[in-house]
């Protein structure tokens, strides 16, 4: 009995090792190759070097694309978080409709390619000039949905009597929102912002459809790849990987369940 169980546990370990290898080995290879002191398109290890990182920062096209992407991500994040917060508040407090709920989260599930095509036809229908603005709006479509979903988890445990207590103590509605509601849900808002920002930075499909002449960072990489995978691209991808991981870890940290985040219910009626 116990032997076969030990055997199962052993196999589980192997299985888990393979799984993690499958998930993370390509990333490891990517990171390692970004430090490879080799000429373009040579895959064998030629020694450690950071020269490709230097080349990334010397490449004006990459830098311009990065700048564009950060502007787009920042604007899309701002729009998503402001509207997403209001949406989350409205949904949590003023509706009981699960249909409406589903409708709000639906944009997350729509295939990017469909969103891209839909937006492109919509923009041309209303003669909206494609460019940075159109990408910002496009990213906000699912950004708002993501932000609302994340902020709602924060609102679910929110004890509304703290807002009433604030009103009771002589503070009007809007100052109450700013001094009580907003600080208490702020970790959720920040974590939503980090997630939306990360998603916007590496989003390719929708941006490609709605970019017009604008070149975002993923579009730039895509155009570089057409001439083969270079160590420079590996360096760029590694930088992006590090940046995304940082933001996601920060988002998870901020939105973790905390004892001091919310007042525990002081007790029920007996």
């Amino acid at each position, binding site marked *: 009995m116990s032997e076969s169980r030990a055997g199962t546990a052993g196999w589980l370990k192997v299985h888990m090792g393979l799984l993690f290898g499958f998930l993370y080995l390509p990333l490891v290879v990517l990171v390692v190759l970004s430090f490879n002191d080799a000429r373009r398109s040579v895959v064998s290890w030629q020694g450690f070097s950071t020269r490709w990182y230097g080349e990334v920062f010397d490449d004006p096209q990459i830098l311009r694309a990065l700048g564009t992407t950060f502007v787009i991500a920042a604007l899309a994040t701002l729009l998503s978080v402001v509207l997403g917060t209001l949406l989350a508040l409205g949904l949590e407090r003023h509706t009981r409709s699960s249909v409406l709920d589903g409708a709000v989260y639906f944009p997350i599930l729509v295939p990017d390619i469909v969103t891209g095509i839909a937006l492109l036809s919509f923009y041309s229908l209303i003669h909206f000039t494609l460019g940075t603005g159109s990408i910002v709006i496009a990213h906000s479509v699912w950004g708002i949905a993501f932000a609302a979903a994340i902020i709602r988890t924060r609102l679910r445990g929110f*004890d509304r009597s703290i807002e009433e207590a*604030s009103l009771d*103590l002589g503070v009007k509605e809007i100052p109450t929102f700013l001094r009580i509601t907003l600080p208490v849900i702020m970790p959720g808002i920040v974590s939503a912002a980090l997630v939306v920002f990360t998603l916007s930075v590496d989003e390719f499909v929708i941006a490609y459809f709605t970019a017009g002449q604008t070149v975002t960072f993923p579009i730039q990489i895509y155009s570089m790849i057409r001439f083969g995978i270079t160590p420079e691209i590996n360096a760029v991808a590694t930088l992006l990987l590090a940046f995304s991981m940082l933001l996601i870890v920060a988002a998870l940290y901020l939105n973790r369940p905390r*004892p001091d985040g919310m007042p525990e219910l002081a007790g029920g009626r007996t």
Partner: protein
Amino acid sequence: MSAEPRTRGAAGEGLRSAGDRGADVISIEHVVKEFGPVRALDEVSLAIRENEFFALLGPSGCGKTTLLRCIGGFEEVTSGRIVLDGADLVGTKPYTRPVNMMFQSYALFPHMIVWDNVAYGLRAERLPKEQIRERVDDVLAKVGMSSLAERRPNQLSGGQRQRVALARSIVKRPRVLLLDEPLAALDRKMRQEMEMELKRLQHEVGITFIVVTHDQEEAMTMADRIAVMNAGHVLQVASPQELYDRPVDRFVAAFIGRMNFLEGTVVPGAVLVERHGPLRAPVDGLKEGVAASLAVRPESARVLRSPEDASPQDVTVSAVVEGVAFVGSQVHTHLVLEVSGTPFAIVDSGRVSMASPGETVTVAWAPDAARVLTS
């Protein structure tokens, strides 16, 4: 006040607080509150006096918390007036009312330390910093929380949070303090301690307290006067003694303390109880033939070994002892009346006659110790 002998139950002596009472601070006039088709408050009228410790008592869902929230301004009344110091509060916002509330969940601001929680309401008044510091420090000392002023609410115990909530709600010196089930979250020992403490504090700060509770013992211990509510109605407003001794109806009689009921109809000088015949009772002013309950407090009746032990004017009924519980200072005897099978409970010192289960005994009480209730 009548000359009837007053019997007091286990509920304890209601403490009187001194200070002048008399003028009404707040009067609730014909207040109706509807939630959709549900009438949570139905024509409620009450007057609460200056410096009074007033309790709204009733089972859950009776409307007591709704009434408190209407006074605080968190619910709009459907109709009626809530007049404080001569001014109608209906339609005004919570932040303009000179009333503060202590919430059942305490509603402490989780992102602020204790000191800032208490200072919050004074900062809203834009008082000078020096004055805010003085008043916050003073009120924290009053509730014994000075040493924990730098803590966050999540670093406090339930009892400590309760004190902070209390401090925060009295620091603005409201005309009326509303307390929603202030002790419900505390354990029994702490609750008894806080009952006394609330009483002391109310006396010290001289603010009118309106407390909502479902616990009759709590209300009896703390309140000067109690309004008993049920199903959106105020049934009786009276002092704890008055409620206990002279309940106006069956609901109040059963809700405040324990009561034995015998159902029957009013006949001259007695209530005619089926199978028991007429039992003498104070029926003055009641119409003959009306359905009535004869209500006898467990401590108003006695267990006797034989009918001869009763005094001549006593009402006597024979009963079988079901069970006897000795609880130290008292003996609780559970009986079933013979013939009708009605359950009957008696609480006495048990020193005279401690019956044993199965024994047939005589239950006796003085006719004027019973109440006749027609509703």
